[in-house]
């Protein structure tokens, strides 16, 4: 059993209305000094068996086609041990 975490974030140039809404809400509740918030997604995959290079390549493929949309998003893959 292994855990693989895929973080997906909007590309920096893409507007993030959710992040913006959070910045203004933070202002309302009195947390000042937050310059920016970006909201991304995190996928935690539980994988049967061990993670080898082939599997990792497969996961990267999935991350770039299914879990993220390369037109607007970047992603990172980490194996958590």
């Amino acid at each position, binding site marked *: 059993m292994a855990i693989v975490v895929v973080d997906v974030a909007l590309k920096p*140039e*893409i*507007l993030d*209305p*959710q992040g913006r*809404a959070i910045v203004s809400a933070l202002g309302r509740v009195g947390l000042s000094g937050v310059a920016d918030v970006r909201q991304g997604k995190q996928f935690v995959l539980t994988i049967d068996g061990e993670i080898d290079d082939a599997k990792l390549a497969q996961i990267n493929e999935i991350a770039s086609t*299914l*879990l993220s*949309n390369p*037109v*607007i998003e970047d992603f990172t893959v980490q194996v958590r041990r």
Partner: protein
Amino acid sequence: MTPRVGVITFPGSLDDKDAARAVRIAGADSVALWHADADLHSVDAVVLPGGFSYGDYLRCGAIAKFAPVMEKLVDAANGGLPILGICNGFQVLTESHLLPGALTRNDHLHFICRDQKLRIENNTSAWTSDFNVGDEILIPLKNGEGGYVADEKTLDELEGEGRVIARYLEINPNGSRRDIAGITNSRGNVVGIMPHPEHAVETLTGPTTDGLGFFSSLLKSLVNDGKVSA
């Protein structure tokens, strides 16, 4: 022969019956296509309806692009088959790279359902030939993730090639770049539009019957292309 227009149902498609109704009102036969059936049953055109395919979990349209029927559809699109993606259908088309760009969360973060004014910008695509450029139409819009985005180069290209088919008027309801409501591919057979023409085909149930133009355009282009006889 009456043209046959396929309407694909994915799990979670919602406006498939409505799209079929619009096809019938326009004078064509509607053919139900099933996501798991990798066969377009020799239809003359296809509508990808609105809704929440696969719950729109992950990203709108992202899971639908892997449906068996989509592989056939991509081939057919490249072969020139007229395809209209409405709302979720538009999202499926961008996820499948049949159209450029992406549809993102509305800038105001709410789902919005309203009667939306549009200006028709292109009357050469398979789905807009019955309009005049500059026509103003009013049809329902309903989406949570309808903000059209693409990089500047792509946007310039779309504008330059006249591939923006309709633009939002008066209000930009979702933060779409350059008020874009719908686009087409360069060949003009694949069109994606965020608002819902199929909900504006009867005075009783829609704000207008302006949406019929998309479907009558299709019939006209099929005749012009010699696909069906007049």
